[in-house]
C-alpha cells in the first residue's frame, strides 16, 4: 500500500465508524480542496453515496467561483445540500480583530445550523499540519453545547477506538482527514481526478492556496497552473499554507481563542 492508499483507508474507516455510531451526521462542505477530498472519500466509504447532508454555512462573502462550484457539484455528486446563512456581523464579539471577527461570524452561523437540525456529529476537513493548535486535535472531538473545545480535557483516543458518545446538548466533530498533509490532498486530488475550484490555479502570477471569505483571503505568488505544478511548488516552498489567511496573523492567540469558542 502506498501512502495515499493508507491515508484513504484510514479516512474511509473513520467515515464508517462515524456513520455506524452517530445518528444525525452532517458533513461541513466549505467547497475548498480539503472538503472536496472529504466528499470523495465519503463516496468511497459508502460506494458512491454520501448518506448524510452536506452543510454549507454560507457567509455570503465567498468568491463567485465557489458558488458556481457548489451548485454544479452539489447536483453532480447528488448531495443532500443544506445551505445555512450566517448572522450579521454586528452580532459578533466586537473585541476580536476584523478577520477573526469574520471567522467568528461563521462559527455563529454553524451554531444556528446545529440548533436547527440537531446534528450530533459534524464531519470537518481540518488537518493536523495546517496550524499548530490543530495538531492537538482528536479524530472524534467532543464540543460543548456552545461548540467550545477544551484542549486540556480531551478523552483518550487510541488504537482507532473513538469516543462517540457526546454529553447531552453537545456534539462531536469528526475529522476524517486529520492525518493528511497539504501535499497529500493535492496528490490525491490528482490521482483521483477530483474537481477543484480554478482559483487554486495560478493566474497572472498568483493563486489561492487556501480559500476563505473573499475579503480576508489573499493569493500567493505562484506560477502553478495545474495540480502537478502545485505539487512541485509545495515541494520547494517552506511558506505556511495559511499565510494568505489574514485571520492567522492578527495576534498570536487569535486562532486559539477562536477554536476554544468553536471555530473549526
Amino acid at each position: 500500500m502506498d501512502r495515499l492508499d493508507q491515508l484513504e483507508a484510514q479516512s474511509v474507516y473513520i467515515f464508517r465508524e462515524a456513520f455506524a455510531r452517530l445518528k444525525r451526521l452532517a458533513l461541513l462542505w466549505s467547497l475548498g480542496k480539503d472538503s472536496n477530498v472529504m466528499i470523495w472519500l465519503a463516496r468511497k466509504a459508502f460506494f458512491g453515496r454520501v448518506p448524510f447532508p452536506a452543510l454549507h454555512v454560507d457567509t455570503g462573502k465567498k468568491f463567485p467561483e465557489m458558488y458556481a462550484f457548489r451548485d454544479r457539484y452539489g447536483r453532480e455528486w447528488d448531495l443532500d445540500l443544506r445551505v445555512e446563512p450566517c448572522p450579521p456581523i454586528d452580532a459578533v464579539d466586537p473585541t476580536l480583530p476584523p478577520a477573526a471577527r469574520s471567522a467568528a461570524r461563521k462559527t455563529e452561523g454553524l451554531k444556528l445550523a446545529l440548533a436547527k437540525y440537531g446534528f450530533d456529529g459534524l464531519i470537518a476537513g481540518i488537518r493536523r499540519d495546517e496550524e499548530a493548535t490543530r495538531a492537538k486535535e482528536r479524530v472524534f472531538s467532543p464540543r460543548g453545547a456552545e461548540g467550545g473545545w477544551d484542549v486540556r480535557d480531551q478523552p483518550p483516543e487510541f488504537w482507532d477506538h473513538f469516543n462517540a458518545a457526546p454529553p447531552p446538548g453537545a456534539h462531536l466533530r469528526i475529522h476524517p482527514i486529520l492525518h493528511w498533509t497539504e501535499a497529500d490532498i493535492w496528490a490525491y486530488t490528482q490521482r483521483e481526478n477530483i474537481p477543484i475550484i480554478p482559483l487554486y490555479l495560478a493566474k497572472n502570477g498568483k493563486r489561492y492556496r487556501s480559500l476563505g471569505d473573499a475579503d480576508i483571503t489573499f493569493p500567493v505568488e505562484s506560477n502553478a497552473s495545474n495540480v502537478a505544478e502545485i505539487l512541485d511548488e509545495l515541494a520547494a516552498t517552506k511558506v505556511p499554507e495559511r499565510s494568505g489567511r489574514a485571520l492567522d496573523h492578527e495576534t498570536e492567540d487569535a486562532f486559539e481563542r477562536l477554536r476554544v469558542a468553536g471555530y473549526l
Partner: protein
Amino acid sequence: MNMIVAHRPVAPNVATSSRPLVRIVIVGHVDHGKSTLIGRLLHETGSLPDGKLDTLKAVSARRGMPFEWSFLLDSLQTERDQGITIDTTQIAFRTPHRDVVLIDAPGHAEFLRNMITGAAQADAALLLIDAHEGVRDQTRRHGYLLHLLGVKQVAVVVNKMDRVGYSEARFREVGDEISAHLKGLGVAPAAIIPISAREGDGVGAASPRLDWHGGPTVIGAIDQFEPARALEQLPLRLPVQAIYKFDDRRIVAGRIESGGLARGDEIVIMPAGKIAKIRSVESWPAASPQTAHRAGHAVGITLDRELFLERGDIIGHAAAAPRATRRLRARIFWLHDTPLNAGDAILVRLGTRESRATVAAIDQAIDPGELASGTSAVIARNHVGEIEIALTQPIAADLHTDNPHTGRLVIEVDGRIAGGGLVIGLDAAPRAAPVDIVPVESALRPEERAARYRHRGAVVWFTGLPGAGKSTLARALERWLFQGGGAPVLLDGDTLRAGLNGDLGFSATDRSENVRRLAEVAAHLARNGHIAIVAAVSPSAEDRAAARRISGALFREVHVATPAAVCESRDPKGHYAKARAGGLDGFTGIGGDYQPPEASELTLDTSRHTVAEATADIARMLARTGVLPDAVADPAAS
C-alpha cells in the same frame, strides 16, 4: 502566531514513496530536554520552515527570554503559560532512510494518559535521560510502560552531556543503570546514545566531543528502526464495521486488519462460526475494480449466501480463524479518575465489537512508578494490572502475541474510553464456570456422530405467530430426518412448559427464561450431534438473539411468516378465540407484539406452500449451511 511544527518536505513522488515509515514516541522525565531534542532533530533534518528560527527568536526577545530550541514545540499560548507540553503532538520529518512520525508525549506525570495514547501507536521509542540527573522514577515508569505496551525497539538517549563535561564514565554509569532496568523488563535497548541536544552533539553528525562513542547518533539510530510488523503476513482478520444495503447489494464493509482476501475465498464469520464464500469485492468508482485486498485496505465484500452477520463480527479464513470467547484475560492500563474494581460493569471494545462485560477478577495491580506489584484489589488511574473479563456475549478475539490488532481492546466507562489493554489469555469455554463445577466432556467426537447420523448437530429454531405452522413443520422435519437415519429431537415450547419450564408464566422475564432454557437444552443436544428442532413463538428479537448466542455456530433460524389473518383463521389451539374473548392475557398474535427476524436463515409462508415443499426448503437451507451433506435427497420426492 502561525507555526507549522509538522512541516513535511515533499516532492511530487513522496506520496507514493516506498520509504519505510516508522512511528516513534519520545518519552522522558519532564526536565530532561525532550522538546530541545525535537527542535534540534527538525533543524538537523532540514525540516523547519523558512524564517522559523528568526520568528521564534523575535518572539523570545519580545517575551524577554533567551531563545530555546524547545520553543519550536511550545506553540500554544496556554502551553507556554503552563510551561509544559499538554498533549500528544505528531511531527513528521525525514531522515536519510526513514519517513518518521515523531510522537511527542508529555513528560509531566499528570498527563501520563496522553503518553500512553502516544506510545500505543508507536513502532519504536526514544527514551531520554539527563546525564547529570540520571535515571529517575519517571524514567523507570516510562520504560515499564513501553514494555507493557509492547514497544520493543527502544533507543536510550543520554542528554545534557555538556553538563557532565562529555564524560564517558558518567555516560557508562547512566547507560548501565537504564540497561539493567530495561533488560529486567525484557527490552534490549537498540542503542544508547550520548548527546547534547542544546549544543547539537550526537544528534545528526558524529561529534568530536563524543569521539569515544562508537555507536550511532540519534538520526543514525532512527534509521535502524524497523517499521511495524508486517500485518499482511498474518491470517486474515476483517472486523465488520457495517452491512450496507444502499441498493440491491448487501455489502459487508470493514478494514482488513491483517492478512488478505480475494473473491472466491471461503471465509468463516466469528464468533458464530458460519461459513460463506466471497462472491464479490466491491469498490467505487467501479472503473478500476480490484478482486483482492491486503491488510490496511478498507473494503466491501458480498457473500454467496444470506447469513446473519453484524457489526462486530470478525471474518477470517476457516483454517486460521480468531477464537470465540466469553472470557478473556488482559493486561490493562487505567486512565479513569475512578479506580477499576472487581465486579465493575464495563463496556469492552475489541475491533468493531462492543460488548458489555464484568471485571471477574483483578489479579495484579501495579503502580508503574513504584513497580511494586501491590496486593491492591483496585487499579487506580495511571496504574496497570492484569484482569479477567467476563463478557455478556461471545466475541471473536486473538491473543495479542498472535495478532496485535485483534488482540487488544479498550474499556469504556460512561461512554468514555477509560483504559486499554492487550489480550493475554482467551478462554474458549462458553461461559465462566464457578470453580467447583467441572464439566465432563463427551467420550465421542463430533465426527463420529456425524458419520453415523449423516448430518452435523444443529439447532433448527422455528419462530412465528401462534397458528403459523411451526409445530406442523417441526414434526414433518423430524419425521423426514429420522427416516434418513438422522437423530432429530423435537423441543416444542408448549410441551416443555408442562415440565422443565412448568414454573414459568408469560411475563417478558419468564418468556426470556423460557427461551434461554430451550436454547440451552437444544444447544446441548446439537453439540452432541442431534438436530434439535425447536418450535416456539419466541416473539422477542432479543431473546432469539440470546438463543443464537447460546447455540453459537449451530443455530439455524426458520421464520414461519404465515400472514396473521391466516394464523387466526386456523387457530389450532383455540387461543385466538379465547384472546378475542378477553380470556388470555399476554397472548402473542393479536397484540402485535411479535418482532419478526430480520436475518433468519430461512423465511417460509405456509399459506403458500405445502408441508412437503416447506420441508424441502428447510432441507436445502440445512444443506447450504453445512448441516446436511449436499447429496441429501429432496424430501419432497420421498
